C-alpha cells in the first residue's frame, strides 16, 4: 500500500466530484470511503513501533532543498485514521441539507488532501504547504455557505490564522538557513543545536501559529464566531479535524524542534491552557446559542489536551493522542445534534427548545450518549482521554490537576443544562412536531455513538498505535534537554 495513493486520492475524488455535478454528494461520499479504505489498509501494514513507515521522499525544489517527503509513524497514524474516518461521517451528515453545489463537496475533499499532507509531511516546507492548502477550501466553505455574518467573521478567522502561520513560515525559513545540509527535513531540524535564546523566539513563532489554530486562550476569539457562523459541515471540519493540526504541530514540530524554547516557555503555555479550560467552561455556562455553547466547550476540552502535552510525560501525551480522536468524534456528533436541531427548529436559541426527548426518542438517546462522552463518563471515550490527561497534569503539579479537573464538574454543568433545556421539560409549539432522526442522520449518529462506547471499553487498541512513538519522542527531547 502506497502512502501517495492515500494522499492524492482525495484530489482525484475532488476532481471527479466537480465534474459529476448531479451526483456530487454521492461521489464525495464514495471518494471519502475509498480514502478510508486506503487508510485502513495502511493501518493493516503498520507496525506499532517508533519507526517512520511508508516513507516517500522525492526532491521537489532541489535548489532550495525542498523535498516531497511524507511518512507515517505512531503519532501520524491516529490522525490519519481520524481524518479519513471522520470525512465520510461529515459528508454523510450534510446529505439532508440540500447543498447541491458540486463545488462544496469538491472543496471538502480538497481540504482532506491538505489535512493529510499536514499529518504526514516530514519536510517543513511541505508541512507548511499542507497547512495553507487546508485553509483555502475551508475559507470558501465558510464564506459561501455560512450564516448571516459570515463575511465579517470569516475575514477575521482568515486574517488571524494567516497571521499566525506567517510567524511559523518565518521560523521555518530561519531554521532552514541554519541547517548544514540546506534542508527542510524534520530530521535536520531535530538535529539543530541552536542556543536557548534563539529557540526561545522560534518557540513563539511556531506556538502562535498552533495556539491560534487550536485555539488556546487568549488566542481563541475568532473561534466561537467562526464555529457559529460556518455551515455545520465547515464547523465539523474545523473542530473535528483542523484544530488537531495545531495540536499535532505542537507534538511534532514545536517541542522537538525547540526543546529549550519549550523549557523556557512551556510552563507559560501550560498555564494558558489550564486557564483556558476553566475560562471557556465558565463562559459556556450561560451561552444561549447552542453552537456557541459547543464552541466554548470545545475550547475547554482542547485546553486540557494542550495541557496534557505541555506537561510532557507519557500519560499526558498518550492522553492527548487518544483525546484528539475522541474530541473529533464527539464534537462532530455534537455539531450534528446542533445541526439537526437548527434544521428542524430554524433557531439556535436554546431557550426556545424543550421537551424534544418525548417526541424524538432515538435522537434523545444519541444526544445523551454524545453528552456522556463529552463529560467523560467511564466506559465512554472521553473518560479515557480525560483520565490520562489529568493524570499527566497531576504528575506535573497537583494544583494544576485540581484546577484542570474542574472540567469534569463544569462540563457536566453546561452539558446537562443544555440537555435539560433542549430535551426535557414540556414540548412547546415548535418542538411538539419535532421529527425523529432518520436515514443519514441516524447512520452517522449510530456510528458516532458506537465509537464513543467501543473506544471507552477497549482503548488499548488506539493507545497501542502511538505508544512507542510517543515514548521515543519524549526520550529524544529529554535527552537534548539533559545536557
Amino acid at each position, binding site marked *: 500500500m502506497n502512502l501517495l495513493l492515500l494522499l492524492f486520492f482525495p484530489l482525484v475524488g475532488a476532481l471527479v466530484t466537480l465534474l459529476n455535478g448531479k451526483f456530487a454528494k454521492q461521489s464525495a461520499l464514495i471518494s471519502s470511503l475509498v480514502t478510508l479504505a486506503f487508510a485502513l489498509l495502511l493501518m493493516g501494514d503498520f507496525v506499532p513501533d517508533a519507526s517512520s513507515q511508508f516513507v516517500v521522499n522525492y526532491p521537489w525544489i532541489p535548489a532550495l532543498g525542498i523535498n516531497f517527503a511524507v511518512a507515517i509513524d505512531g503519532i501520524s497514524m491516529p490522525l490519519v485514521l481520524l481524518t479519513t474516518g471522520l470525512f465520510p461521517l461529515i459528508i454523510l451528515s450534510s446529505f439532508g441539507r440540500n447543498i447541491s453545489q458540486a463545488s462544496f463537496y469538491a472543496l471538502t475533499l480538497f481540504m482532506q488532501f491538505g489535512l493529510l499532507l499536514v499529518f504526514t509531511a516530514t519536510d517543513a516546507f511541505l508541512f507548511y504547504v499542507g497547512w495553507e492548502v487546508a485553509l483555502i477550501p475551508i475559507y470558501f466553505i465558510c464564506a459561501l455557505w455560512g450564516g448571516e455574518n459570515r463575511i465579517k467573521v470569516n475575514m477575521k478567522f482568515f486574517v488571524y490564522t494567516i497571521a499566525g502561520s506567517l510567524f511559523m513560515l518565518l521560523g521555518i525559513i530561519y531554521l532552514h538557513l541554519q541547517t548544514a545540509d540546506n534542508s527542510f527535513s524534520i530530521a535536520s531540524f531535530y538535529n539543530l543545536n541552536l542556543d536557548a535564546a534563539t529557540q526561545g523566539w522560534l518557540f513563539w513563532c511556531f506556538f502562535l501559529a498552533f495556539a491560534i489554530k487550536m485555539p488556546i486562550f487568549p488566542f481563541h*476569539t475568532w473561534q466561537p464566531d467562526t464555529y457559529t457562523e460556518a455551515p455545520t459541515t465547515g464547523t465539523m471540519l474545523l473542530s473535528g479535524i483542523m484544530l488537531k493540526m495545531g495540536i499535532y504541530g505542537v507534538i511534532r514540530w514545536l517541542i522537538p524542534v525547540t526543546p529549550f524554547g519549550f523549557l523556557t516557555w512551556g510552563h507559560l503555555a501550560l498555564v494558558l491552557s489550564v486557564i483556558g479550560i476553566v*475560562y471557556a467552561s465558565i463562559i459556556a*455556562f*450561560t451561552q444561549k446559542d447552542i453552537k456557541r455553547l459547543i464552541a466554548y466547550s470545545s475550547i475547554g476540552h482542547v485546553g486540557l489536551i494542550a495541557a496534557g502535552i505541555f506537561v510532557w510525560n507519557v*500519560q499526558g501525551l*498518550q492522553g492527548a493522542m487518544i483525546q484528539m480522536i475522541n474530541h473529533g468524534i464527539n464534537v462532530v456528533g455534537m455539531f450534528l445534534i446542533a445541526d439537526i436541531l437548527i434544521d428542524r427548529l430554524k433557531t439556535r436559541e436554546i431557550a426556545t427548545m424543550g421537551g424534544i426527548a418525548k417526541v424524538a426518542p432515538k435522537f434523545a438517546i444519541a444526544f445523551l450518549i454524545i453528552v*456522556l462522552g463529552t463529560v467523560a463518563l467511564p*466506559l465512554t471515550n472521553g473518560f479515557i482521554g480525560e483520565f490520562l490527561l489529568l493524570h499527566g497534569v497531576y504528575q506535573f503539579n497537583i494544583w494544576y490537576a485540581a484546577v484542570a479537573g474542574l472540567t469534569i464538574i463544569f462540563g457536566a454543568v453546561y452539558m446537562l443544562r443544555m440537555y435539560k433545556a433542549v430535551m*426535557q421539560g414540556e414540548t412547546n409549539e415548535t418542538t411538539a412536531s419535532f421529527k425523529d432522526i432518520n436515514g443519514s442522520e441516524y447512520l452517522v449518529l449510530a456510528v458516532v455513538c458506537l465509537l464513543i462506547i467501543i473506544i471507552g471499553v477497549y482503548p*488499548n487498541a488506539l493507545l497501542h498505535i502511538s505508544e512507542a512513538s510517543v515514548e521515543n519522542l519524549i526520550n529524544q527531547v529529554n535527552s537534548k534537554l539533559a545536557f
Partner: protein
Amino acid sequence: MIDLVWLIPLLPFIGFLINGLGRNVLPKPLIGTIASLAVIGSFAISLSIFLTFDAAQPQVIHLFDWINVGSLSIPFAFQIDQLSIMMLLIITGIGSLIHIYSAGYMSHDAGFGKFFAYLNLFVFFMLLLVMGSNYVIMFIGWEGVGLCSYLLIGFWYSNGAYADAAKKAFIMNRIGDLGFLLGVFLIITTFGSVSFTEIFPKAAGMVSGDATLVLITILLFIGATGKSAQLPLFTWLPDAMAGPTPVSALIHAATMVTAGIYMIARSNILFALSPVTLDIIAVIGLLTAVVAAFIALTQTDIKKVLAYSTVSQLGYMFLGLGVGAFTGAFFHVLTHAFFKALLFLGAGSVIHAMSNEQDMRNMGGLRKKLPITFLTMLIGTIAIAGLPPFAGFFSKDEILAHVYEHNKLLWIIGLFGAFLTAAYMFRMMFLTFWGNFRGTEDQKHHLHESPVSMTFPLIVLAILSIVGGFMGVPHALGGHHWLNEYLSPVLAATNNILPALSLDHATEYMLMGISVGGVIISIIIAYVKYVSKGYVPKEEELQSGFSKLSYNKLYLDELYTAIIQKPLDALSAFFFKVVDKSGIDGLVNGLGKVSIEASKTLRLLQTGNVGFYIFAMVIGIVAVLVYSFIII
C-alpha cells in the same frame, strides 16, 4: 463457582440490552420477567459463591487489560472477598425484590420498558462498583450508578423540576468525583498501582499519620460525601425523591448511597493509618446525622422524611467509620438496606393506594385499609428506631458503643440524634396510619392494599428487618458476632492497628439501656402529640419559629444558589461580555484596525503623481548618500 463470577454483572447487562432494545415491542409482563430474572440469576450465583467461598485471601479474576500507558496498567478485573460478597448479596438480593415490586408499581407507566432497562443497567454498574479489583473499575461503577441515578431521578423528565433534580444529583456527585479522581492519581503516584491487592499490603507497612495517606484518604472521603450524601454535598438526595419510589428504595437508600461507606471499608487500611481523616469523617458524619434528623422532624412529604432519614443514617455509618468501627458501620449498611428499602417500598405502596399523594397531611387512618403495608412499615420503623431485637438496634448500638469509647461528647450528640430518629419516624407512622382519613373522597374511594407483587417484597424485607440483626449479636448479649468474624480477613490489617472495643459488659448494658429508654420516651412524646392530641402540622405553623428552619431545610439550597451558582453565572456573563468580547477580542480587533489604518496611511503615499515619486526618489538618494558619507 468463582469462575462464573463475570456472569453476575453480565446478566443484568444483558437484561438492559434486551429491554432497552425491545422496550417498545416486548409485552410488559415479559419485560418485567426478563429484568427480574436477570437480577435473580445474579443473586443465585452470588449466593452460591457466598456458600462456597472460604479463602482467607481475596480472589482476583482478570478479564482483560483495559488501559495501559507507560508504567501504568489498569486491568479490567474483579475481586471477590468477604466484603464484596456481602455487597453482592445485598445488591442482587434486595435488587431482585425491588424488581419484582416494580413490576407491580410501574405497571401503568408508559415508560415501563425503559424503566426496567435503566434499573438493570443500575444493577450492572453497582456490581462493577463492588466487584472491581482496583480503584478505576470501582470508579466506572461509581460514575455509572451516578448516570443511572440521573436517568431514574429524571425518569419523568417532562416535569422540569424533576429534570432539575436529576441534573443537580449528577453535578453534586461530580464535585465529589473530582476528589475521588485526584485521590486515585495520588494512589498511583504513591503505590505505582491502582489494584487493591498491591496497594493495601504496601500501605500496611507505612506509619500511622503519614501525610500522603492522610491526603489520599481525605480526597477519597470527598468522593464519598458526594455519592453518600454527606455535608456539605447532601442536598441532592432529598431532591432525588423525584424518581419513582422503587428507585428511591434501591438506589437512594439500599445500595448506591452506601457506596461511599463500601469504598472506605474497602480501603480500611488506608483510613486506619490516617487518624486525622478518621476524626474528620466522624465529625462530618455526626453533623450530617443530626442536621438531617432535625430537618426530617417537620417534613410533610412522606418520601422526604425517608430521604432525610437516609441521609441521617448514612451519617451514622460515617460516624462509625470515623471512630474505627468498620464492622459496625458496614453492619449498619446491611441492616439499613433491609429496613430502609422496606420503608421506601411501604411508602410507595401508600402513595400507590393514595393515587400518587405524598403529603402526609392528606393521609391518616390508613392502617385498616392497608394492613400489610402498615404492619411491615411498622416493623421497619421499629427497626430504624433501634428497639431490640429488631435489626437496627444491633448495628446502631455497635456504632454508638464505639463512639462512647472514642469520645463522650460525640456519643451524647449521636444519642440525641438517635432519639430524634425515633421521633420523626413514629411521627411519620402516626400521621399516615393513625387518626382519621384527611384526603379527598376520590382518594378514599380508591384506597386499596397493593397487589402481591408489591406486598411480597414488603413481607420478605420485614422478616429481614426483624432477624437481620442477629448476624451481629454482641458478646454482651450472648452472641458471637458472626459478621465480625466473617469480615475479619478483609479487616485483618486494620484490626492490628485500631484498638478493639474494650467496654465491659456492664457499660454495654448501660449504653443499651439509655438508648432504648430514650427511644421509648421519644416514641411516647410523638404518640401523645400526633395520636392523643391528633395534631396535624399546618403550613403557617411550619413557617414560624424553630420549625421554620427545619421545614425549609436550613435554607441550604438557597445558600448554595446564592454563594455558588449565582456568582458563577455572573462570572460567566462577565467573562463572556466583558473579558472575551470587549477585552481580548477588542484587543484583537484593535490590532486589526491599527494595521488597516497603517495601510491606509501608507497607501496615501502612492498618489500616482510622478512629480511626487521623483521628489521622493531624490530625497531617498540624498539620504543614502548622506548616510554612507557619515558612516564611512
